[in-house]
């Protein structure tokens, strides 16, 4: 009696796993294996090449004693906060405005969104020269007759960080707008009508009903923006190169320069580990909740 599965059925049972296996193996090796490797490196005295001399937490101690790293941390904190807040505010505002039966919405939306299709290097190049006092905004204003106008942020160690915020907001706020707009359009019209019948003014309607209903969009926007912020490397390189001096150093640029140009691989690795941990602290709970829900 054939209680054992026949060959075809058994093959069919195994095929899916066989098909998935390479991807899974590659992920395990190239992502989790590599993460492990970097974590191990961060506890070694590696300089130019990986070297497995155990040094304990020395790299982490050195790292947090380095002024450059501390600048990077302060910078990323300021940058990420401003970037996330401004993108969210602009995105939400544009979405709500666009949702008022606007004529020409079909034309405005793509205009708001196209920067997202560009490389950060292109964005950086455009803004770098546009904000350059010698040829850009400042000079334009002078030529238009506003002689006292001064805008030298990009050359100014104190202010250069904010030019990165401007360029980054320019690139992503349209996308945040799209996320909120999708959220707004997903809200049941009848709920809004009911609130209006209850006597809510437009302002109350948004503050009390619409914005709370956009919670999922806020969460998604926050997760995506914070992940983009921490990974930001290209934009800094293209716009300021981390300068003037080291004024706009970020963890991403710090890691790269310590690892590949200053031959301090151990310290570079430890900075990468810190970055990973920060992102994981945000992403893991989010992904976990999303997958749980889906099941």
């Amino acid at each position, binding site marked *: 009696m054939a209680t054992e599965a026949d060959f075809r059925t058994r093959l069919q049972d195994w095929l899916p796993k066989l098909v*998935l296996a390479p991807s899974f193996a590659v992920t395990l090796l190239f992502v989790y294996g590599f993460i492990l490797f970097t974590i191990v490196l961060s506890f070694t005295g590696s300089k130019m090449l990986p070297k497995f001399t155990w040094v304990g937490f020395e790299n982490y101690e050195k790292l947090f004693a380095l002024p450059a790293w501390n600048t990077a941390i302060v910078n990323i904190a300021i940058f990420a906060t401003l970037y996330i807040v401004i993108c969210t505010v602009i995105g939400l505002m544009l979405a709500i405005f666009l*949702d008022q039966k606007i004529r020409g919405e079909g034309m405005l939306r793509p205009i708001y*969104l196209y920067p997202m299709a560009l490389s950060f290097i292109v964005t950086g190049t455009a803004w770098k020269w546009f904000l350059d006092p010698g040829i850009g905004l400042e000079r334009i204003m002078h030529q238009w007759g506003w002689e006292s106008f001064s805008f030298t942020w990009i050359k100014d160690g104190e202010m250069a960080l904010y030019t990165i915020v401007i360029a980054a907001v320019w690139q992503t706020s349209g996308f945040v707008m799209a996320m909120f707009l999708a959220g707004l359009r997903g809200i049941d019209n009848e709920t809004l009508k009911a609130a209006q019948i209850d006597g809510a003014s437009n302002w109350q309607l948004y503050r009390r009903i619409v914005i709370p209903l956009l919670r999922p969009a806020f969460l998604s926007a926050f997760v995506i923006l914070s992940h983009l912020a921490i990974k930001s490397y290209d934009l800094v390189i293209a716009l300021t190169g981390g300068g003037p001096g080291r004024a706009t150093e970020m963890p991403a640029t710090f890691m790269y320069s310590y690892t590949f140009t200053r031959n301090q691989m151990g310290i570079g690795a430890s900075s990468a580990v810190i970055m990973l941990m920060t992102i994981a602290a945000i992403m893991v709970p989010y992904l976990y909740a999303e997958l749980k829900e889906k099941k």
Partner: protein
Amino acid sequence: MAAVTQDTAVSTGRITRTFIYLVLVLFALFYLLPLYVMGVNSLKPLNEITGGNMMALPSQWTLEPWRSAWSTAQIGVEPTGLKPYFLNSILMVVPAVAISTIIGALNGYVLTKWRFRGDTWVFGLMLFSCFIPFQIVLIPMAVVLGKLGLAGTVPGLILVHVVYGIGFTTLYFRNYYASFPTELVRAAMIDGAGFFRIFWRILLPVSGPIAVVSVIWQFTNIWNDFLFGVSFGGTSQPMTVALNNLVQSSTGVKEYNVHFAGAILAALPTLLVYIVAGRYFVRGLMAGSVKG
């Protein structure tokens, strides 16, 4: 974005509406400004930039900056223009996009229609890999590419982009196939179709929309990548790295007009994709927030 046409029930007064239009238009100008600046100044001779106004239209229109950016500008040490790098990018993007999309489709198919114990974990692990800061893999990747003899080559970059792209492509196809009725797969099984035949005959023919999303997303991401390019590009650097080298070069006069032309050249393929298939592009971005 295309399907959303439902309007809110909110009504607004005249003054508010005028204000809203004003804000919307001002922001449109803000978003268009850099594109305008790049476009206008890439068509001027250099002296009109250094001696004139960036916002002004060219008084003498010229394509010379474009020609220079494409074929003669100094990139690093060689006066090759961006052309060879553009080709590198193409050679890298096309296979990387194709491979990662195909793998993503198969993975999504397995993860939704051939579920097994622990499949959510497998997917979760793959998904998390989309969000890691790539700095964490740079060092070991450099070592492995060196060992494989792929350091500084286009195949090396393809490998890197495929490896770190399949998380996203798998996410797309998984979310898409999740809403595809499992009963269809069961019907096909009873009809006698096997694993690959079901994929090929039943799922693939209806996968067009998500394949477009996946291709656009991957294309944009890989084309626009800088970190992997600059780390592992070696002698086969992609367009973004070359553009950065062009702009950042500290020798000689800064040819802003050439830089702008180069920037537009680097942006052109993705902009084109965006113009042709914008709504799929947006859908891809949205799916990045995990929900399908």
